[in-house]
């Protein structure tokens, strides 16, 4: 088997640069227009606050907090345009962290299950995982930038003895332990740093085994990578769930869903699978990855099909229970998203893009085996799950001020360009095929 290498050509770099530049331009245009529109919206802003206030008095606990915030702090955080940027930064951080960590998760789970078919493509998820260290730095830096606007629970006044918010106070230890509530969220940040440190460490260890296998061809690397993968999966099972509570559920500190960990994981997993498949298809169309044939594409397609349904299952499980139980603190989450005109279209679009399209388009066998169809469905799923994260974060942060426009598209394109640049340049640095992988032979004869 000849060694195959991906070369990150100048034209590919140029395309990515152009995507990034368009993103920056859109972001600037969007920001300027929302800044200049900011003054005109002041009046509207006030009335919106009022409606929100009226709604929230229905729910005594929530009303208490809102009244307190409006009264004592007297402001609603940063200007709308800035808040919008913050909320977008957070959405994209989480989404692209997901793509990266799923790259590692994909590799790990195929080691643990001793899968043979994926041996020919496992360099692509590995390349995607190279975004992880950057994602970690971005996440921590962004957190400090956005905390006041995105994370309501960081406001120290909530923890005051009188007029505080007793629901949030009850959760204080989860954020502030061992320090005093309302000071510095040490426990929260420790988790953030710890998760990224663990993920990056395991990524580097597994990568090291995979690459040294190329050089000396010793099977012991495969066994070592498998052992590391087992430990990583155990860690990831807990950390992905807790990360979802920390990074997404704590944006709504009054709201709780016991399913959110799985839900976020499912969303990450499907978007990661769609990302891997999309890169495989693009590479294959450019003449790379000769070991990949319709059987491998079929498996990837089945993954996307199956886990789109899995995501929908979790989406529905979360929705139905909240809808049926109708507890104000819980149902406010969906009320915010269905009743507000700026989000209701995203709410339904989310289901159409992430369930209806993959379900109907991928139902037949042929659809999953042909690159033309994969090339249609993968981007739909990728965009769809971006909207999923948008819908998890933005309505909670922006309330009635949220919009979708140039800022959102531009920021996502910037992140996409950066992510692709890192992923593809690291893919170019290693052999595209793990030529000494003991499972490669099985992958070559994969037939379903």
């Amino acid at each position, binding site marked *: 088997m000849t060694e195959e290498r991906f070369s990150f050509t100048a034209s590919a770099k140029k395309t990515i640069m152009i995507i990034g530049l368009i993103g920056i331009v859109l972001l600037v245009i969007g920001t300027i227009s929302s800044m200049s529109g900011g003054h005109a919206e002041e009046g509207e802003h006030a009335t919106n606050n009022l409606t929100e206030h009226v709604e929230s008095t229905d729910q005594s606990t929530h009303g208490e907090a809102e009244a307190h915030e409006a009264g004592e702090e007297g402001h609603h955080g940063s200007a709308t345009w800035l808040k919008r940027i913050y909320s977008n930064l957070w959405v994209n951080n989480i989404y692209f962290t997901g793509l990266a960590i799923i790259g590692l998760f994909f590799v790990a789970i195929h080691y643990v299950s001793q899968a043979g078919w994926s041996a020919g493509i496992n360099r692509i998820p590995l390349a995607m995982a190279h975004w992880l260290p950057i994602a970690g730095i971005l996440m921590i830096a962004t957190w400090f930038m956005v905390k006041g606007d995105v994370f309501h629970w960081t406001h120290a006044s909530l923890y005051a003895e009188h007029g505080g918010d007793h629901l949030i106070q009850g959760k204080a230890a989860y954020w502030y332990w061992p320090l005093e509530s309302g000071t510095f969220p040490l426990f929260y940040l420790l988790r953030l740093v710890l998760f990224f440190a663990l993920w990056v460490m395991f990524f580097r260890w597994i990568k090291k085994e995979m690459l040294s296998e190329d050089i000396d061809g010793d099977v012991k690397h495969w066994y070592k990578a498998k052992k590391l993968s087992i430990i990583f999966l155990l860690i990831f099972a807990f950390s992905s769930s807790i990360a979802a509570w920390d990074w997404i559920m704590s944006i709504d500190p009054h709201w709780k869903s016991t399913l959110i960990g799985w839900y976020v994981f499912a969303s990450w997993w499907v978007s990661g699978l769609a990302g891997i498949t999309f890169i495989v298809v693009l590479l294959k169309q450019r003449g790379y990855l000769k070991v990949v044939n319709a059987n491998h594409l079929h498996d990837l397609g089945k993954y996307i099909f199956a886990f789109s349904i899995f995501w929908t299952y979790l989406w529905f499980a979360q929705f139905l229970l909240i809808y*049926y*139980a*109708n507890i104000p603190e819980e149902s406010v989450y969906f009320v915010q998203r269905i009743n507000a005109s700026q989000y209701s279209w995203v709410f339904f679009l989310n289901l159409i893009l992430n369930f209806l399209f993959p379900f109907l388009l991928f139902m037949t066998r042929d659809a999953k085996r042909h690159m033309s169809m994969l090339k249609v469905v993968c981007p739909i799923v990728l965009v769809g799950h971006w909207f999923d994260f948008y819908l998890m974060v933005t309505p909670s942060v922006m309330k009635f001020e949220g919009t979708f426009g140039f800022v959102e598209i531009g920021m996502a394109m910037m992140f996409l360009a950066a992510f692709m640049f890192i992923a593809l340049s690291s893919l170019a640095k290693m052999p595209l095929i793990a030529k000494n992988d003991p499972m490669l032979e099985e992958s070559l004869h994969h037939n379903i």
Partner: protein
Amino acid sequence: MESNKNFVLGIYNDEDVLLSAIKQVRDSGIKIHEVYSPFPVHGIDEALGYKRTRLPIAAFLFGLLGTTLALTMQIWMLGYDWPMIIGGKNFISFAPFIPVTFELTVLISALGMVATFMIVSDLKPYKKPRLMDIRITDDKHVMAVDLAKNNITKEDIKKVIQGSGASEVNDKNF
């Protein structure tokens, strides 16, 4: 009981030999009636030139039937026949109907698929199986050629099968 069914059987010890034998036999213009093997052999469907099963179409149609049945049943029961207020929701509210709809879709689809499969492959109770050779239940692969479906003489067929690596060539009449 049908009679006058005459087959030539090629018996193979190895599935790789079998796969290349299928190709040789088909290339020489002989139509293969069926190949029997004790375990699934990868690539045998392609080698025999079988068209893919249309069972998924049946599954989809039965699934649609299940969805329709489930929704009609629930809308009629809870909306018209015996309206009940549950959790303050509308009589006909879509979300709570989904679990039942999902389950019935899966159930009808699965049962329908089994029934279709049984009918298409002529599996019915008290059917006497036509066993070409008892050893297909153990360790031998058997290729059966129906003499009535081929215009080639029996001797020529036997020669081709023998030449393709069969360990034995037998006759079988029903």
